[in-house]
Protein backbone atom coordinates (compact mmCIF):
# COMPACT_ATOMS: atom_id res chain seq x y z
CA UNK A 1 0.00 0.00 0.00
CA UNK A 2 1.22 3.50 -0.71
CA UNK A 3 1.60 6.14 1.97
CA UNK A 4 -1.54 7.89 0.76
CA UNK A 5 -3.57 4.86 1.88
CA UNK A 6 -2.49 5.14 5.49
CA UNK A 7 -5.30 6.40 7.65
CA UNK A 8 -4.81 8.01 11.05
CA UNK A 9 -7.18 9.72 13.45
CA UNK A 10 -6.19 13.02 11.84
CA UNK A 11 -7.26 11.96 8.31
CA UNK A 12 -10.32 13.77 7.01
CA UNK A 13 -12.32 11.49 4.72
CA UNK A 14 -14.88 12.71 2.25
CA UNK A 15 -17.13 10.74 -0.12
CA UNK A 16 -15.26 10.18 -3.41
CA UNK A 17 -15.75 12.47 -6.34
CA UNK A 18 -17.92 10.17 -8.38
CA UNK A 19 -19.89 8.58 -5.57
CA UNK A 20 -23.05 9.54 -3.81
CA UNK A 21 -24.41 8.16 -0.55
CA UNK A 22 -28.09 8.14 0.24
CA UNK A 23 -30.66 6.37 2.38
CA UNK A 24 -32.92 4.02 0.43
CA UNK A 25 -36.17 3.33 2.18
CA UNK A 26 -37.01 0.36 -0.09
CA UNK A 27 -33.78 -1.36 0.90
CA UNK A 28 -33.76 -0.05 4.47
CA UNK A 29 -30.10 0.77 4.01
CA UNK A 30 -27.62 3.39 2.95
CA UNK A 31 -26.35 2.85 -0.57
CA UNK A 32 -23.39 4.21 -2.47
CA UNK A 33 -24.21 5.16 -6.01
CA UNK A 34 -21.76 5.54 -8.85
CA UNK A 35 -21.79 5.26 -12.66
CA UNK A 36 -24.07 2.34 -13.47
CA UNK A 37 -23.57 0.74 -10.10
CA UNK A 38 -24.58 0.59 -6.49
CA UNK A 39 -23.23 -0.83 -3.25
CA UNK A 40 -25.68 -1.59 -0.49
CA UNK A 41 -23.98 -0.74 2.77
CA UNK A 42 -24.36 -2.68 5.98
CA UNK A 43 -25.25 -0.69 9.03
CA UNK A 44 -21.78 0.09 10.30
CA UNK A 45 -20.43 0.95 6.84
CA UNK A 46 -23.41 3.25 6.30
CA UNK A 47 -22.97 4.95 9.65
CA UNK A 48 -19.28 5.58 9.04
CA UNK A 49 -19.62 6.73 5.44
CA UNK A 50 -22.43 9.15 6.10
CA UNK A 51 -20.08 10.90 8.52
CA UNK A 52 -17.39 11.24 5.85
CA UNK A 53 -18.36 14.76 4.89
CA UNK A 54 -14.90 16.28 4.53
CA UNK A 55 -15.41 18.16 7.78
CA UNK A 56 -14.75 15.66 10.54
CA UNK A 57 -11.52 13.70 10.97
CA UNK A 58 -11.42 10.00 11.78
CA UNK A 59 -11.02 10.79 15.48
CA UNK A 60 -14.17 12.95 15.49
CA UNK A 61 -16.08 10.34 13.51
CA UNK A 62 -15.12 7.65 15.98
CA UNK A 63 -16.11 9.79 18.94
CA UNK A 64 -19.46 10.57 17.37
CA UNK A 65 -20.12 6.89 16.63
CA UNK A 66 -19.16 5.82 20.14
CA UNK A 67 -21.50 8.44 21.55
CA UNK A 68 -24.40 7.64 19.21
CA UNK A 69 -24.20 3.90 19.74
CA UNK A 70 -23.05 4.01 23.32
CA UNK A 71 -19.97 1.94 22.52
CA UNK A 72 -16.24 1.98 23.14
CA UNK A 73 -13.05 1.00 21.34
CA UNK A 74 -14.27 1.57 17.76
CA UNK A 75 -11.13 3.42 16.66
CA UNK A 76 -9.40 0.55 14.88
CA UNK A 77 -12.59 -0.62 13.17
CA UNK A 78 -13.18 2.84 11.78
CA UNK A 79 -9.60 3.17 10.59
CA UNK A 80 -9.72 -0.24 8.91
CA UNK A 81 -12.95 0.57 7.17
CA UNK A 82 -11.79 3.98 5.96
CA UNK A 83 -8.67 2.35 4.55
CA UNK A 84 -10.79 -0.12 2.65
CA UNK A 85 -13.08 2.66 1.45
CA UNK A 86 -10.07 4.60 0.26
CA UNK A 87 -8.87 1.67 -1.82
CA UNK A 88 -12.31 1.39 -3.37
CA UNK A 89 -12.27 5.16 -4.02
CA UNK A 90 -15.48 5.44 -2.00
CA UNK A 91 -13.74 8.17 -0.03
CA UNK A 92 -10.88 10.58 -0.56
CA UNK A 93 -8.81 11.91 2.30
CA UNK A 94 -7.14 15.23 2.91
Amino acid at each position, binding site marked *: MTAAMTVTTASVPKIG*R*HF*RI*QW*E*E*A*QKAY*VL*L*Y*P*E*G*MVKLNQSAGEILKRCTGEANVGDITADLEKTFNAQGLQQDVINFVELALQQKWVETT
Partner: protein
Amino acid sequence: MTDLAEAQAAQDAATIGPPLWLLAEVTYRCPLHCVYCYNPVDFAKHEAELSTEEWFKVLREARELGSVQCGFSGGEPMLRDDLELLVAEAHRLGYYTNLLTSGVGLNEKRIDALKEAGLDHIQLSFQDSSREMNDFLSSTRTFDLKRRVADLIKSRGYPMVMNCTIHRHNIDHIESILQLADEIEAEYVELANTQYYGWAQVNRDQLLPSREQLERAERITNEWREKHGNKMKLFFVVPDYYENRPKKCMNGWGNIFLTITPDGKALPCHTARMLPGLEFPDVRTSSVRDIWYESEGFNRYRGTGWMKEPCSSCPEKEKDYGGCRCQAYMVANDPNAADPVCDKSPFHHKIVEAVERAQIAGNPQQVKPLIYRGPKESLQLDRPF
Protein backbone atom coordinates in the same frame (compact mmCIF):
# COMPACT_ATOMS: atom_id res chain seq x y z
CA MET B 1 -60.54 -10.62 -3.09
CA THR B 2 -60.12 -13.08 -0.28
CA ASP B 3 -57.83 -12.45 2.66
CA LEU B 4 -55.73 -15.36 1.57
CA ALA B 5 -55.05 -13.96 -1.88
CA GLU B 6 -54.18 -10.63 -0.34
CA ALA B 7 -51.83 -12.24 2.12
CA GLN B 8 -50.23 -14.14 -0.74
CA ALA B 9 -49.78 -10.95 -2.76
CA ALA B 10 -48.23 -9.24 0.24
CA GLN B 11 -45.87 -12.13 0.69
CA ASP B 12 -44.84 -12.11 -2.97
CA ALA B 13 -44.20 -8.41 -2.75
CA ALA B 14 -41.99 -9.09 0.23
CA THR B 15 -39.93 -11.80 -1.45
CA ILE B 16 -39.60 -10.18 -4.87
CA GLY B 17 -37.06 -7.39 -4.50
CA PRO B 18 -37.57 -3.92 -5.99
CA PRO B 19 -36.68 -3.01 -9.59
CA LEU B 20 -33.46 -1.31 -8.54
CA TRP B 21 -32.44 -0.57 -12.11
CA LEU B 22 -34.71 1.34 -14.41
CA LEU B 23 -33.67 1.54 -18.04
CA ALA B 24 -35.59 4.23 -19.88
CA GLU B 25 -35.20 3.62 -23.59
CA VAL B 26 -36.59 6.97 -24.55
CA THR B 27 -36.44 6.51 -28.32
CA TYR B 28 -35.54 3.93 -30.96
CA ARG B 29 -34.53 6.72 -33.33
CA CYS B 30 -30.81 6.96 -33.92
CA PRO B 31 -28.59 8.74 -36.42
CA LEU B 32 -26.16 5.81 -36.34
CA HIS B 33 -26.57 2.44 -38.03
CA CYS B 34 -24.50 0.09 -35.92
CA VAL B 35 -24.30 -3.43 -37.27
CA TYR B 36 -24.59 -4.87 -33.76
CA CYS B 37 -27.35 -2.57 -32.52
CA TYR B 38 -29.23 -4.15 -29.62
CA ASN B 39 -32.56 -2.58 -30.56
CA PRO B 40 -35.19 -4.98 -31.86
CA VAL B 41 -34.90 -5.73 -35.55
CA ASP B 42 -38.49 -4.60 -36.03
CA PHE B 43 -38.01 -1.32 -34.13
CA ALA B 44 -39.42 0.73 -37.01
CA LYS B 45 -42.86 -0.73 -36.26
CA HIS B 46 -42.92 0.74 -32.75
CA GLU B 47 -43.00 4.42 -33.41
CA ALA B 48 -45.48 5.87 -30.92
CA GLU B 49 -43.15 7.27 -28.25
CA LEU B 50 -44.23 8.02 -24.72
CA SER B 51 -44.82 11.69 -23.96
CA THR B 52 -42.94 13.71 -21.36
CA GLU B 53 -45.83 13.33 -18.91
CA GLU B 54 -45.98 9.59 -19.43
CA TRP B 55 -42.27 9.29 -18.71
CA PHE B 56 -42.75 11.36 -15.56
CA LYS B 57 -45.35 8.86 -14.42
CA VAL B 58 -43.00 5.94 -15.06
CA LEU B 59 -40.15 7.63 -13.20
CA ARG B 60 -42.37 8.43 -10.23
CA GLU B 61 -43.96 5.00 -9.95
CA ALA B 62 -40.70 3.12 -10.32
CA ARG B 63 -39.00 5.32 -7.75
CA GLU B 64 -41.82 4.60 -5.31
CA LEU B 65 -41.06 0.90 -5.66
CA GLY B 66 -37.38 1.48 -4.96
CA SER B 67 -35.72 2.06 -8.33
CA VAL B 68 -32.59 4.06 -7.77
CA GLN B 69 -30.33 3.70 -10.79
CA CYS B 70 -31.87 5.25 -13.86
CA GLY B 71 -30.35 4.91 -17.33
CA PHE B 72 -31.50 6.99 -20.26
CA SER B 73 -30.73 5.14 -23.45
CA GLY B 74 -32.18 4.49 -26.86
CA GLY B 75 -31.64 4.67 -29.83
CA GLU B 76 -29.97 7.96 -29.28
CA PRO B 77 -31.55 9.62 -26.22
CA MET B 78 -30.24 13.04 -27.25
CA LEU B 79 -32.85 12.96 -30.00
CA ARG B 80 -35.52 13.58 -27.36
CA ASP B 81 -35.92 17.35 -27.01
CA ASP B 82 -37.30 16.84 -23.52
CA LEU B 83 -34.33 14.80 -22.25
CA GLU B 84 -33.30 17.64 -19.92
CA LEU B 85 -36.79 17.65 -18.42
CA LEU B 86 -36.75 13.89 -17.90
CA VAL B 87 -33.33 14.02 -16.26
CA ALA B 88 -34.40 16.87 -14.01
CA GLU B 89 -37.45 14.96 -12.85
CA ALA B 90 -35.43 11.79 -12.24
CA HIS B 91 -32.90 13.79 -10.27
CA ARG B 92 -35.60 15.46 -8.22
CA LEU B 93 -37.03 12.05 -7.36
CA GLY B 94 -33.65 10.89 -6.02
CA TYR B 95 -32.37 8.68 -8.83
CA TYR B 96 -28.76 8.39 -9.79
CA THR B 97 -29.02 9.38 -13.45
CA ASN B 98 -26.98 7.86 -16.27
CA LEU B 99 -26.98 8.90 -19.91
CA LEU B 100 -25.92 6.32 -22.50
CA THR B 101 -25.11 8.13 -25.70
CA SER B 102 -23.24 7.91 -28.99
CA GLY B 103 -22.41 11.58 -28.47
CA VAL B 104 -24.39 12.78 -31.45
CA GLY B 105 -26.37 15.85 -30.41
CA LEU B 106 -24.42 16.46 -27.22
CA ASN B 107 -23.15 20.01 -27.63
CA GLU B 108 -22.10 22.69 -25.11
CA LYS B 109 -25.53 24.06 -24.64
CA ARG B 110 -27.15 20.72 -23.96
CA ILE B 111 -24.44 19.35 -21.72
CA ASP B 112 -24.76 22.48 -19.57
CA ALA B 113 -28.52 22.06 -19.44
CA LEU B 114 -28.11 18.39 -18.49
CA LYS B 115 -25.63 19.25 -15.77
CA GLU B 116 -28.05 21.86 -14.48
CA ALA B 117 -30.79 19.22 -14.52
CA GLY B 118 -28.65 17.05 -12.24
CA LEU B 119 -27.31 14.42 -14.62
CA ASP B 120 -24.79 12.27 -12.72
CA HIS B 121 -22.97 10.41 -15.43
CA ILE B 122 -22.47 10.02 -19.15
CA GLN B 123 -21.39 6.85 -20.92
CA LEU B 124 -19.96 7.54 -24.34
CA SER B 125 -19.83 4.77 -26.92
CA PHE B 126 -17.20 4.40 -29.56
CA GLN B 127 -17.28 1.89 -32.39
CA ASP B 128 -13.52 1.69 -32.75
CA SER B 129 -10.27 3.52 -32.12
CA SER B 130 -9.78 4.62 -35.69
CA ARG B 131 -11.86 7.08 -37.60
CA GLU B 132 -12.13 4.69 -40.56
CA MET B 133 -13.44 1.72 -38.59
CA ASN B 134 -15.65 3.77 -36.29
CA ASP B 135 -17.29 5.43 -39.24
CA PHE B 136 -17.51 2.20 -41.22
CA LEU B 137 -19.18 0.25 -38.42
CA SER B 138 -21.71 2.94 -37.60
CA SER B 139 -22.10 3.96 -41.23
CA THR B 140 -21.68 7.62 -40.25
CA ARG B 141 -18.90 10.16 -39.87
CA THR B 142 -18.93 10.47 -36.15
CA PHE B 143 -15.42 9.71 -34.91
CA ASP B 144 -14.12 13.28 -34.71
CA LEU B 145 -17.35 14.37 -33.13
CA LYS B 146 -17.00 11.72 -30.43
CA ARG B 147 -13.51 12.90 -29.60
CA ARG B 148 -14.84 16.43 -29.15
CA VAL B 149 -17.72 15.17 -27.03
CA ALA B 150 -15.26 13.26 -24.84
CA ASP B 151 -13.43 16.51 -24.11
CA LEU B 152 -16.71 18.23 -23.40
CA ILE B 153 -17.74 15.53 -20.92
CA LYS B 154 -14.42 15.82 -19.13
CA SER B 155 -14.53 19.60 -19.04
CA ARG B 156 -17.82 19.49 -17.15
CA GLY B 157 -16.30 17.34 -14.41
CA TYR B 158 -18.08 14.11 -15.32
CA PRO B 159 -16.47 10.74 -14.78
CA MET B 160 -15.50 9.40 -18.18
CA VAL B 161 -17.10 6.08 -18.99
CA MET B 162 -16.18 4.76 -22.38
CA ASN B 163 -17.93 1.86 -23.98
CA CYS B 164 -16.81 0.02 -27.05
CA THR B 165 -18.64 -3.00 -28.39
CA ILE B 166 -16.12 -5.61 -29.45
CA HIS B 167 -16.40 -8.04 -32.34
CA ARG B 168 -14.47 -9.64 -35.17
CA HIS B 169 -13.83 -6.38 -37.01
CA ASN B 170 -12.36 -4.34 -34.20
CA ILE B 171 -11.09 -6.87 -31.67
CA ASP B 172 -7.59 -6.79 -33.14
CA HIS B 173 -7.44 -3.06 -32.41
CA ILE B 174 -7.82 -3.57 -28.69
CA GLU B 175 -4.50 -1.97 -27.92
CA SER B 176 -5.30 1.24 -29.72
CA ILE B 177 -8.81 1.24 -28.23
CA LEU B 178 -7.17 1.16 -24.80
CA GLN B 179 -4.86 3.97 -25.88
CA LEU B 180 -7.84 6.00 -26.97
CA ALA B 181 -9.45 5.38 -23.60
CA ASP B 182 -6.29 6.54 -21.91
CA GLU B 183 -6.12 9.67 -24.07
CA ILE B 184 -9.64 10.71 -23.22
CA GLU B 185 -8.83 9.92 -19.58
CA ALA B 186 -11.56 7.34 -19.16
CA GLU B 187 -12.17 6.22 -15.60
CA TYR B 188 -14.23 3.22 -16.63
CA VAL B 189 -13.82 1.30 -19.86
CA GLU B 190 -16.25 -1.36 -20.99
CA LEU B 191 -14.98 -3.61 -23.72
CA ALA B 192 -18.08 -5.65 -24.11
CA ASN B 193 -18.09 -8.35 -26.72
CA THR B 194 -21.17 -8.23 -28.85
CA GLN B 195 -24.10 -10.14 -27.45
CA TYR B 196 -26.04 -11.81 -30.19
CA TYR B 197 -29.44 -10.18 -30.04
CA GLY B 198 -31.18 -7.76 -32.30
CA TRP B 199 -29.07 -6.63 -35.22
CA ALA B 200 -26.04 -8.46 -33.91
CA GLN B 201 -27.96 -11.72 -34.34
CA VAL B 202 -28.73 -10.77 -37.95
CA ASN B 203 -24.97 -10.24 -38.48
CA ARG B 204 -23.77 -12.92 -36.09
CA ASP B 205 -21.47 -14.92 -38.36
CA GLN B 206 -19.81 -11.75 -39.58
CA LEU B 207 -19.23 -10.47 -36.04
CA LEU B 208 -18.21 -13.47 -33.96
CA PRO B 209 -14.43 -13.34 -33.35
CA SER B 210 -12.17 -16.36 -33.52
CA ARG B 211 -10.78 -17.96 -30.39
CA GLU B 212 -7.33 -16.72 -31.26
CA GLN B 213 -8.55 -13.15 -31.60
CA LEU B 214 -10.34 -13.39 -28.31
CA GLU B 215 -7.40 -14.79 -26.39
CA ARG B 216 -5.10 -12.15 -27.78
CA ALA B 217 -7.47 -9.35 -26.81
CA GLU B 218 -7.87 -10.72 -23.31
CA ARG B 219 -4.14 -11.03 -22.90
CA ILE B 220 -3.55 -7.45 -24.01
CA THR B 221 -6.26 -6.20 -21.68
CA ASN B 222 -4.68 -8.05 -18.76
CA GLU B 223 -1.24 -6.71 -19.59
CA TRP B 224 -2.66 -3.23 -19.69
CA ARG B 225 -4.21 -3.75 -16.27
CA GLU B 226 -0.89 -4.88 -14.82
CA LYS B 227 0.99 -1.98 -16.34
CA HIS B 228 -1.43 0.80 -15.47
CA GLY B 229 -2.93 -0.35 -12.20
CA ASN B 230 -6.43 0.78 -11.38
CA LYS B 231 -6.24 4.26 -12.85
CA MET B 232 -8.88 3.12 -15.25
CA LYS B 233 -11.29 0.37 -14.40
CA LEU B 234 -11.36 -2.10 -17.25
CA PHE B 235 -14.20 -4.46 -17.95
CA PHE B 236 -13.71 -7.09 -20.62
CA VAL B 237 -16.78 -9.15 -21.35
CA VAL B 238 -16.26 -12.35 -23.36
CA PRO B 239 -18.99 -13.46 -25.75
CA ASP B 240 -21.01 -16.17 -24.04
CA TYR B 241 -20.70 -18.30 -27.18
CA TYR B 242 -17.26 -19.22 -25.88
CA GLU B 243 -18.55 -20.43 -22.52
CA ASN B 244 -20.04 -23.76 -21.39
CA ARG B 245 -22.47 -22.22 -18.94
CA PRO B 246 -24.84 -19.37 -19.64
CA LYS B 247 -24.66 -16.05 -17.88
CA LYS B 248 -27.18 -15.21 -15.20
CA CYS B 249 -29.10 -13.13 -17.65
CA MET B 250 -30.23 -9.74 -16.28
CA ASN B 251 -29.20 -11.08 -12.88
CA GLY B 252 -32.39 -13.10 -12.97
CA TRP B 253 -35.64 -12.41 -14.80
CA GLY B 254 -37.67 -9.71 -13.06
CA ASN B 255 -35.11 -9.59 -10.29
CA ILE B 256 -33.63 -6.09 -10.43
CA PHE B 257 -33.99 -4.81 -14.01
CA LEU B 258 -36.93 -3.00 -15.48
CA THR B 259 -36.76 -1.73 -19.05
CA ILE B 260 -39.32 0.61 -20.52
CA THR B 261 -39.33 0.76 -24.31
CA PRO B 262 -39.87 3.99 -26.26
CA ASP B 263 -43.48 3.01 -26.94
CA GLY B 264 -44.22 2.15 -23.32
CA LYS B 265 -43.81 -1.60 -23.02
CA ALA B 266 -42.36 -2.81 -19.74
CA LEU B 267 -39.79 -5.56 -20.20
CA PRO B 268 -37.59 -7.62 -17.86
CA CYS B 269 -34.75 -7.05 -20.35
CA HIS B 270 -34.43 -4.85 -23.39
CA THR B 271 -34.60 -7.71 -25.87
CA ALA B 272 -37.49 -9.65 -24.30
CA ARG B 273 -40.15 -8.25 -26.56
CA MET B 274 -39.13 -10.78 -29.22
CA LEU B 275 -40.42 -13.69 -27.11
CA PRO B 276 -43.54 -15.34 -28.52
CA GLY B 277 -46.72 -15.93 -26.59
CA LEU B 278 -45.93 -13.45 -23.87
CA GLU B 279 -47.84 -10.21 -23.49
CA PHE B 280 -45.80 -7.46 -21.93
CA PRO B 281 -47.66 -4.77 -20.04
CA ASP B 282 -47.94 -1.17 -21.17
CA VAL B 283 -47.10 1.68 -18.80
CA ARG B 284 -49.89 3.74 -20.31
CA THR B 285 -52.48 1.36 -18.93
CA SER B 286 -50.80 -0.33 -15.94
CA SER B 287 -49.01 0.95 -12.90
CA VAL B 288 -45.38 0.01 -12.46
CA ARG B 289 -46.34 -1.78 -9.24
CA ASP B 290 -48.80 -4.04 -11.05
CA ILE B 291 -46.32 -4.57 -13.84
CA TRP B 292 -43.50 -5.59 -11.53
CA TYR B 293 -45.41 -7.76 -9.08
CA GLU B 294 -48.54 -8.97 -10.86
CA SER B 295 -48.03 -9.17 -14.62
CA GLU B 296 -47.68 -12.43 -16.48
CA GLY B 297 -44.83 -10.94 -18.50
CA PHE B 298 -42.71 -10.47 -15.38
CA ASN B 299 -43.81 -13.53 -13.45
CA ARG B 300 -43.46 -16.12 -16.20
CA TYR B 301 -39.72 -16.69 -15.88
CA ARG B 302 -39.11 -15.56 -12.34
CA GLY B 303 -37.23 -18.04 -10.19
CA THR B 304 -36.99 -21.68 -11.28
CA GLY B 305 -40.58 -22.97 -11.29
CA TRP B 306 -41.05 -22.58 -15.07
CA MET B 307 -38.05 -24.72 -15.98
CA LYS B 308 -37.97 -27.98 -17.88
CA GLU B 309 -35.15 -30.45 -18.32
CA PRO B 310 -32.17 -30.26 -18.26
CA CYS B 311 -32.59 -27.17 -16.05
CA SER B 312 -35.31 -28.32 -13.68
CA SER B 313 -33.19 -31.03 -12.05
CA CYS B 314 -29.89 -29.22 -12.48
CA PRO B 315 -27.89 -28.45 -9.32
CA GLU B 316 -26.75 -25.17 -10.89
CA LYS B 317 -30.20 -23.77 -11.58
CA GLU B 318 -30.04 -21.12 -8.88
CA LYS B 319 -26.71 -19.98 -10.25
CA ASP B 320 -27.73 -18.97 -13.76
CA TYR B 321 -31.52 -19.39 -13.74
CA GLY B 322 -31.22 -21.30 -17.02
CA GLY B 323 -29.55 -18.39 -18.82
CA CYS B 324 -31.15 -16.14 -21.37
CA ARG B 325 -34.72 -16.69 -22.54
CA CYS B 326 -34.15 -14.81 -25.77
CA GLN B 327 -31.13 -16.90 -26.65
CA ALA B 328 -33.14 -20.05 -25.91
CA TYR B 329 -35.82 -18.83 -28.28
CA MET B 330 -33.46 -17.68 -31.01
CA VAL B 331 -31.27 -20.79 -31.04
CA ALA B 332 -33.45 -23.59 -29.65
CA ASN B 333 -36.71 -22.12 -30.92
CA ASP B 334 -38.19 -22.51 -27.43
CA PRO B 335 -38.20 -19.76 -24.81
CA ASN B 336 -38.59 -22.38 -22.03
CA ALA B 337 -35.47 -24.30 -23.01
CA ALA B 338 -32.06 -24.12 -21.39
CA ASP B 339 -29.89 -21.41 -22.87
CA PRO B 340 -28.05 -23.34 -25.62
CA VAL B 341 -24.76 -21.83 -24.47
CA CYS B 342 -25.01 -24.46 -21.72
CA ASP B 343 -23.32 -27.69 -22.74
CA LYS B 344 -26.17 -29.64 -21.12
CA SER B 345 -28.58 -28.18 -23.64
CA PRO B 346 -29.56 -30.52 -26.50
CA PHE B 347 -29.07 -27.52 -28.80
CA HIS B 348 -25.58 -26.68 -27.65
CA HIS B 349 -24.20 -28.00 -30.94
CA LYS B 350 -25.70 -25.00 -32.70
CA ILE B 351 -23.51 -22.70 -30.64
CA VAL B 352 -20.51 -24.95 -31.18
CA GLU B 353 -21.09 -24.87 -34.94
CA ALA B 354 -21.19 -21.08 -35.01
CA VAL B 355 -18.00 -20.98 -32.96
CA GLU B 356 -16.33 -23.47 -35.28
CA ARG B 357 -17.27 -21.41 -38.31
CA ALA B 358 -15.69 -18.40 -36.63
CA GLN B 359 -12.31 -20.18 -36.62
CA ILE B 360 -12.23 -20.42 -40.41
CA ALA B 361 -11.34 -17.01 -41.76
CA GLY B 362 -13.20 -15.99 -44.87
CA ASN B 363 -15.91 -18.65 -44.79
CA PRO B 364 -18.97 -17.80 -46.88
CA GLN B 365 -21.20 -16.92 -43.88
CA GLN B 366 -18.59 -14.59 -42.52
CA VAL B 367 -17.98 -12.56 -45.64
CA LYS B 368 -21.66 -11.89 -46.33
CA PRO B 369 -22.24 -8.14 -46.41
CA LEU B 370 -23.13 -6.65 -43.03
CA ILE B 371 -26.65 -5.40 -42.62
CA TYR B 372 -26.78 -1.91 -41.14
CA ARG B 373 -29.47 -1.05 -38.69
CA GLY B 374 -31.93 1.40 -40.16
CA PRO B 375 -35.68 1.95 -40.50
CA LYS B 376 -35.72 0.76 -44.10
CA GLU B 377 -33.85 -2.45 -43.27
CA SER B 378 -36.08 -2.93 -40.24
CA LEU B 379 -39.24 -2.90 -42.33
CA GLN B 380 -37.67 -5.03 -45.04
CA LEU B 381 -36.50 -7.75 -42.67
CA ASP B 382 -39.92 -7.72 -41.05
CA ARG B 383 -39.11 -10.13 -38.22
CA PRO B 384 -38.57 -9.94 -34.47
CA PHE B 385 -34.91 -10.97 -34.44
